[in-house]
């Protein structure tokens, strides 16, 4: 048990250090919270499913966390705190973790929250292969030793169980509602224990959450309702925030920040995050199964240039390690001496690597061909405005790869269609390259190791959309997953990153800072270190809102 606590504490210490650019006071602490009002929060894209077992999209988490809560939470100070759990105990052989649950909690459908319900969720997750199962590698089954206890039985001890339980998709939904509606029903209606109940779902427009009068935390929440809008265009979201049509938004363009910061009626925050852009290369399609080609593609991208021109130089940082960002346990600067990023931009090197691998321009048309004459010409799938700067990054990728003679056609897709299309098993995956971003909400390397690059995490199970498989990567991940010796674990993590640099399963791109804006009359809201936004203690200063001339 002590090992768990210590490890979490260390991981989160890094996270806190990384979040130093987090400016602006979060609370107006001398003010009394006020009840009432509706908070309108505009998000970037439509979600293809709100069922936590099938979608780990960060924006979707922000929607369902209003209604569905986890056993634990990693709070804004990056500490692991119990939510629906009260305390926990680990058996001597470290194979059974018993969690005592909060009493007197009920799901929105009136059924009681208890050990049975929690055990059902995780047993069902294992049986139906919920998307997050690779995070629980080693989990055998769960049962309820008593009404208010749940026991996790592990086939092998694993260190990251508790922080992983704080990952928002592992929230506890109502088994009764799930059995009635099925996964399809839960995709548009979430039934949990949260501070708000999910009242309305209008596809492509909004989700409405209404105050849960029977919430287990007395006197909370303050807000009457939360309306989550879908507004794909960042410029529109910014304009809506400025005009007071919405109270809060995310993914603001870095070029708009100076202007918004100067507005006293707005609170703008920039936060370090673990969200790293990357290009999925489908290893099922040649030549992405060729390691030399993948390495060459990595060298062809000017990461510093992307940070400069897309993120105004301040909204992102170049990647300094593969997949992991500062703040994640085990993160180590993996750059070579004197280089500004991993795979420092070197177009000549990229070209010569491709030539050595047998790819060159044989017919003089400007595009390089393989030995059999097939052109290196690919479709790059991207969204527009899903994550700030995505479309611009895609255009730059096209330009950089064009420089070394690789033809790229952009295919811009709508959010929900894109998410669904990049969640297919290998035989159905149509993409060659796709631009995505990746965050580590548990601030623990276990998630990327088990969920992102592991062979067992091939879509549709995990997030290995590359269909990348490396025995060495898997071996290091398994070792890190099962060891309880923290020093050793860190060694494995560093070795794992070094191996990623050898094999380059994806194209590594900059890590963005989150840009969030809200009206200054919104108080008491929290932004967790995991980028999530629970509005349970948020409240609106009605007087100030009226003074700003906002009537709704």
């Amino acid at each position, binding site marked *: 048990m002590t090992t768990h606590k210590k490890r979490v504490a260390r991981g989160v210490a890094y996270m806190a250090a990384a979040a130093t650019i987090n400016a602006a006071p979060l609370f107006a602490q001398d003010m009394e919270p006020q009840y009432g009002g509706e908070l309108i929060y505009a998000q970037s894209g439509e979600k293809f499913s709100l069922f936590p077992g099938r979608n780990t999209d960060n924006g979707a988490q922000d929607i369902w966390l209003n209604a569905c809560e986890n056993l634990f939470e990693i709070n804004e100070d990056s500490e692991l705190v119990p939510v629906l759990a009260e305390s926990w105990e680990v058996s001597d052989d470290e194979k059974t973790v018993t969690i005592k649950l909060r009493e007197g909690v009920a799901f929105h459908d009136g059924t009681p929250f208890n050990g049975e319900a929690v055990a059902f969720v995780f047993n069902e997750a294992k049986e139906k292969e919920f998307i997050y199962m690779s995070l629980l590698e080693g989990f055998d089954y769960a049962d309820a030793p008593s009404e208010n206890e749940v026991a996790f039985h592990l086939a092998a001890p694993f260190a990251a169980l508790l922080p992983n339980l704080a990952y928002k998709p592992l929230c506890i939904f109502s088994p009764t509602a799930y059995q009635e509606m099925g996964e399809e029903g839960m995709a548009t209606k979430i039934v949990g224990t949260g501070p708000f109940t999910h009242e309305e779902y209008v596809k492509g427009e909004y989700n409405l959450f209404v105050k849960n009068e029977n919430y287990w935390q007395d006197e909370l929440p303050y807000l009457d309702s939360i309306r989550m809008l879908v507004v794909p265009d960042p*410029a529109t979201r910014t304009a809506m925030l400025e005009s007071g049509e919405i109270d809060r938004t995310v993914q603001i363009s870095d070029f708009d920040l100076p202007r918004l910061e100067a507005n006293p009626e707005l609170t703008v925050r920039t936060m370090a995050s673990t969200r790293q852009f990357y290009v999925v290369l489908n290893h099922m399609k040649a030549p992405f199964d060729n390691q030399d080609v993948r390495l060459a593609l990595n060298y062809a991208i000017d990461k510093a240039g992307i940070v400069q021109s897309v993120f105004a130089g301040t909204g992102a940082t170049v990647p300094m390690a593969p997949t992991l960002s500062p703040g994640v346990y085990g993160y180590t600067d993996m750059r070579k001496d004197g280089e500004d990023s991993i795979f420092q931009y070197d177009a000549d090197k990229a070209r010569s690597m491709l030539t050595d691998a047998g790819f060159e321009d044989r017919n003089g048309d400007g595009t390089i061909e393989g030995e059999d004459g097939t052109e290196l010409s690919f479709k790059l799938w991207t969204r527009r405005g899903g994550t700030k700067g995505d479309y*611009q990054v895609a255009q730059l990728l096209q330009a950089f790869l064009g420089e070394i003679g690789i033809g790229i056609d952009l295919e811009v897709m709508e959010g929900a269609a894109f998410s669904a299309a990049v969640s297919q098993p290998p035989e159905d995956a149509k993409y060659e390259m796709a631009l995505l971003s990746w965050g580590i909400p548990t601030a623990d390397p276990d998630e990327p190791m088990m969920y992102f690059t592991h062979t067992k995490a091939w879509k549709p199970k995990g997030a290995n959309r590359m269909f990348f498989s490396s025995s060495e990567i898997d071996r290091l991940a398994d070792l890190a997953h099962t060891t309880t010796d923290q020093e050793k674990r860190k060694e494995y993590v560093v070795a794992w990153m070094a191996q990623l640099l050898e094999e380059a399963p994806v194209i590594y791109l900059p890590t963005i800072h989150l840009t969030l804006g809200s009206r200054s009359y919104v108080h008491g809201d929290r932004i967790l270190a995991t980028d999530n936004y629970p509005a349970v203690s948020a409240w609106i200063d009605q007087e100030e809102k009226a003074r700003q001339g906002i009537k709704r």
Partner: protein
Amino acid sequence: MRNFLRQFSRDRVGVVFGLILIAIYIVAITAQWIVPSDPYKTQLSQGMRPPSWEHWFGTDQFGRDMLSRVILATQVTAKITTSALLFAVLLGVPIGMIVGYHGGWLDEIIMRITDIMLIFPIIMLAIVIVVIAGPSERGVVIALGMSQLPQFIRIARGVTLSVKQELYVEAAIAAGAGWPFILRRHIWPNISTPVIVQATLTLPVFVLNASALSYLGLGVQPPTPEWGQMLNEAKELLIAAPYLIIGPSVALFLFVISANLLGDSLQETLNPKTKGQRMKREFQKFSRRGLKPGKMRVERAARAEIQR
């Protein structure tokens, strides 16, 4: 022809905007050779520079010269709209002539199909077609061409129906001429004028809709520059770099207004009959609203009303 030129040259508006349109096409044709710098060359250190002697319209987010991109976009737009026009004319006119001449069930079917197509607004029809054909230059050409196809079918059919009854057509039939010959020799000469006028008036519609499609991300795909797409990108940086909208909007405005006014002048010069009829119709509309006809000013107001 000389008669036409003499008449047309009296219409100063038509001449001026006709010359502008010709200039735009010259720019479009010679785009590759006259661009001041490579429109595709990204220079990340030179991003978002305001207009200067070096870059008349500034540089975009990736340091590409906006003037060069506007010039190349002129070519792209001219190519797309001209192809779409050819598509609509070369497909629509023969169909219209044939169904108009033969009549019968084929005529019924084609006309009902065009009726259905005419129900939908052009842009909506175009979006549906682009979604099916895929967002690309070819997709936009097909979409625009298809969206205006009914107009050309109807014009060709209408003229064919009336000319068919002329004595010289009957004489040709009596002399044993086949229908392809009659269509070519006797009917086509009557159709060419309204088709040319309609084509000129369709051009600005195509330009605007091509840009609209690109603005929505359904048209030409990056890195190929297109005005609508450039405006969309500029919109995201509207406050940080407002100068980015200047180039594409000026170009779009010039192309559309010159094609529009030229089309109008051509219509008046080539077809005094339609002019008279249209004016009469507009006069009636205005007199109903309590305006007194008879003055040239009212005539112009009426003309402006039509264009709106």
